[in-house]
């Protein structure tokens, strides 16, 4: 679907701006600059306001990033369950630091706070799908699903 068509779906929805940004990001994995400008035009708002909304929410990215977004929970229950080792293993396996994307554009690695799956800590999500009781040895298999 063309960018403008994605945005137009939400134009008449009261408060639909955030839903529109979700839809754009689903397509591009981030919010490109021209998408922000186009959204501002369609919603008849200043670009600064749309940019301000995009930057407020941690799930939105205004910089290009890998297609599959890996988020690791660093809230206290995951922290004491060994999130630190999982982070180190992910960084090692992917050859990038938290906040970066792989060269081939396949993965992005980010922190998140609690994703509400605390029955099986530590938790990571890939494109929103949670993985439970993760440890340095299980991440290889998880990553393989997306390669």
């Amino acid at each position, binding site marked *: 679907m063309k960018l403008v068509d994605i945005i137009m779906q939400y134009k008449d929805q009261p*408060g639909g701006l955030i839903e529109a*940004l979700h839809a754009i990001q689903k397509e591009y994995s981030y919010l490109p600059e021209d998408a922000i400008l186009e959204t501002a035009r369609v919603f008849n708002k200043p670009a600064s306001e749309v940019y301000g909304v995009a930057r407020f929410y941690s799930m939105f990215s205004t910089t290009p990033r890998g297609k599959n977004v890996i988020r690791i929970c660093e809230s*206290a229950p995951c922290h*004491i369950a060994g999130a630190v080792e999982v982070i180190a293993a992910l960084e090692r396996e992917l050859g990038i630091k938290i906040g970066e994307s792989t060269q081939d554009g396949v993965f992005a690695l980010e922190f998140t706070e609690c994703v509400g799956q605390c029955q099986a800590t530590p938790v990571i999500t890939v494109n929103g799908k949670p993985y439970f009781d993760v440890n340095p040895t299980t991440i290889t298999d998880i990553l393989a699903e997306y390669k």
Partner: protein
Amino acid sequence: MADEMRILLRNYGKIDPLKIDDYLAQGGYKALEKAKAMSPADLIEEVKKANLRGRGGAGFNCGLKWSFAYQAQADQKYVVCNADEGEPGTYKDRLIMENDPQAVLEGMAICGYAIGASKGYIYCRGEYPQVVEILNEAIEQANAKGILPGFDVEVRMGAGAYVCGEETALIESLEGNRGEPRFKPPYPPNEGLWGKPTIVNNVETFANIPVIVERGADWFASVGAAAYPGTKIVTLTGDVNNTTFFEVPTDTTLREVIYHFGGGIPAGKKFKAVQVGGTSGAFIPEANLDTPIAFDSMSQIGAVLGSGAVFVLDESRDLVDVATQISKFFEHESCGKCAPCREGTMRLKDMMTKINQGQGTAKDTALIEKLGRVMSYSSLCGLGQAAPSPILSTLKHFSADYDAKMM
């Protein structure tokens, strides 16, 4: 010893959440019918009498809140379900929505009838895309059966901001804005979504409504602690044998939660601390374990019931490290609208990081105590007000952990 009491989770594992017929077969939507046979004023009186208090953390009497929106005059009113559930260690609202979505819709529809609202929104956190799908399917099925006449419900998705759980920030987000809390008053029951009277209630609060209507206020008021009746879904994390959830009457004690339902501390270790209410709660020592989890009894020991999350730490844990991690959370989640919280959460994190790295002095802890006090009364919303609590409570009850790390 106490047993589980499943009121909210009454249909858990018994119905297919994606089949409205299953819900109907369990007596679902009978409460809505019964509610509609009452006058809105009588219905609100019944909810008030049940003494159901909000399960989102603030503990406000639900029926009383509804009465404000009922009395407000407006051409449009709104019912909003707060499904933002961002408090670390909490997943009770997800459990309810995943396993019994129609119960939430029924509770919202009863509220809509009571206050005179024809439109409802469920604001579901962006981290729960699978729940959004379940809710949309549930709404579609209810509409197909014509079960919610005159009441239209829509699901909106958050995008990763803890502060959007605060009701006025949530309303801002629903309007498509940055999720920054508003100055209060006016309160949402008078001026909420798009300036119209709005009831914001938590998922668990709404799920209680059909049961109250069906079984009566007197019955509900007799369950659990008198001042905060009913049950509470508790989600247990950290150093316990059963990191799971259960629904218990509100007079259940913390000790029962940890040792009976939680099965105690693993590997023969000793208990050290428990944090109730999620990451913004206080850490509590062993001496307070016989306190019931009810709202007021928790307040009496300087803690909060909050979301009902219970996070247990054993003797091997370093509370300075845990509190430092939590201080990062608040720095990250502060929306930046007011200075005490925007600057304060950053300073707290800096000082805690310094102490955690073994470079702190008594001067730092004194500063933390002062800053924490100022933040607790001068921050605009509950986020900045509660942010110092995990640190201040660990300084108070577990000062040895700090002493061990001082320069």
